[in-house]
């Protein structure tokens, strides 16, 4: 059974249509990666799923439930099931790492305090930051902040995790520590949609690669097929440019 099913989803920024009918699906535990040139709409897919960019058409199903984005309450239902990690980490700067992780579970979900804190410590261990629980974001490196953001997203126990170019703002030597954390999640069976320019990483962890261009999905397939043997000129052209070095 498909875990997430996106059918003919459209989205606009003002009058500019950035998603022109996107359809794809992923199974539970599967990792899909959205790749394609800048401006192709990859990040918009994730933002639309999270209700940050309004959807103007199409349907989104999670399990048997149809996600509607027409009211604040329904948008929150989608946000209950999915979590996103942004390129720029977007941590709350005036809160400690621990507060960043526990704010939503405690105040929004109203889960029990002991459980939330135990879980937060487990997640910090998972991303290798057990010793920085009381640090503030501005005391951490970019890679550390991004790992905190990853832990914060997981603290809400999402069914699906969306990663929006999580390593694009990082210095090259910090990229691996974040990718290592994502790799651990992949091994734990987390369902993920990853927008990334790290093609070697995508090839390693993704079950499915979705190539996008100008608001359309051009080609879908296993990483090896897409990267080495793409069927469309547009995809072949793109990969020949970025995989050459």
């Amino acid at each position, binding site marked *: 059974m498909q875990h997430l099913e996106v059918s003919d989803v459209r989205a606009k920024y003002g009058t500019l249509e950035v998603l022109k009918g996107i359809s794809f699906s992923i199974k539970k535990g599967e990792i899909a990666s959205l790749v394609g040139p800048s401006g192709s709409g990859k990040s918009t897919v994730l933002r639309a799923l999270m209700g*940050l960019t309004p959807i103007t058409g199409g349907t989104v199903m999670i399990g048997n439930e149809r996600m509607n984005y027409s009211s604040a309450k329904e948008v929150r239902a989608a*946000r209950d099931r999915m979590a996103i990690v942004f390129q720029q980490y977007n941590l*709350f700067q005036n809160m400690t790492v621990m507060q960043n992780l526990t704010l939503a579970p405690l105040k*929004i*979900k109203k889960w029990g305090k002991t459980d939330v804190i135990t879980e937060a410590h487990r997640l910090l261990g998972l991303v290798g930051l057990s010793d920085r629980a009381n640090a503030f974001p501005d005391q951490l490196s970019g890679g550390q902040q991004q790992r905190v953001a990853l832990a914060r997203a997981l603290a809400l126990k999402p069914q699906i995790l969306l990663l929006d170019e999580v390593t694009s703002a990082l210095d090259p030597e910090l990229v691996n520590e974040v990718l290592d954390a994502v790799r651990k999640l992949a091994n734990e069976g987390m369902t993920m949609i990853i927008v990334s320019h790290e093609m070697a990483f995508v090839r390693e962890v993704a079950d499915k690669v979705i190539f996008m261009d100008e608001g359309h999905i051009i080609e879908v397939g296993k990483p090896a097929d897409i990267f080495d043997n793409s069927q469309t000129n547009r995809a072949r052209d793109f990969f020949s440019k970025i995989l050459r070095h």
Partner: protein
Amino acid sequence: MNYGFQFGVVWDNIPELLEGAWLTLQLGCFAFAGGSLIGLLFATIKTYGVWPLRFLVDCYVIFITNTPALIQIYFLYFGLPEVGIRWSNEACLLIGLTMNAGAYLTLILRAGFLSVRVTEIEASQTLGMSLIQQVRYIILPHIAKSIYPALANFFIVVLVMGTSVGALIGVDELTGQAINLSTVNYRWLEYFTVVAGMYVVLTFIASIGLALLGRWAFRVKARIF
């Protein structure tokens, strides 16, 4: 120099000076609190309001911040009675100072509104926060922290410079009280030495209070010295 200091006369009138200092503190606090409400309302209008309202707020801010507080208070105390509006001198001082503080606080609070990071708002939305929860947990703490130093400085300005204007319309706050007393026995030097000291003590107490509040509420590392 042959001046014989006589602090004894000042000492005898310390209770009157303390009364003046108490009035100064009250006027400063009330003007600042009232000004904060005006500032909060007007900064909200300037950030989110429609243009005719924004224009009115702009006019208010421009007029107030570009004229001396003394003129504004003279306008209320000497000007308005000509058209039949007559308030007591203390009321004129308090209203004038509140309106004056309101304009500056509009600017300070607006800077705070503009400093809220869109990225943090988006993060809080995706974590499932409602608008009210975003305001409570993310927006207000951020604004409070970022404008706290400017607010604390401005409070001292209102407390010291603002209230002392009252002496010129006969309000018996600390400066007014010092003028009254020293006119009786011409011990200007002694009185104003002591009053200067009292102002320093007053602002020192206020600074400690503000710094403690800032540390406790907003994690601001405020320095007292």
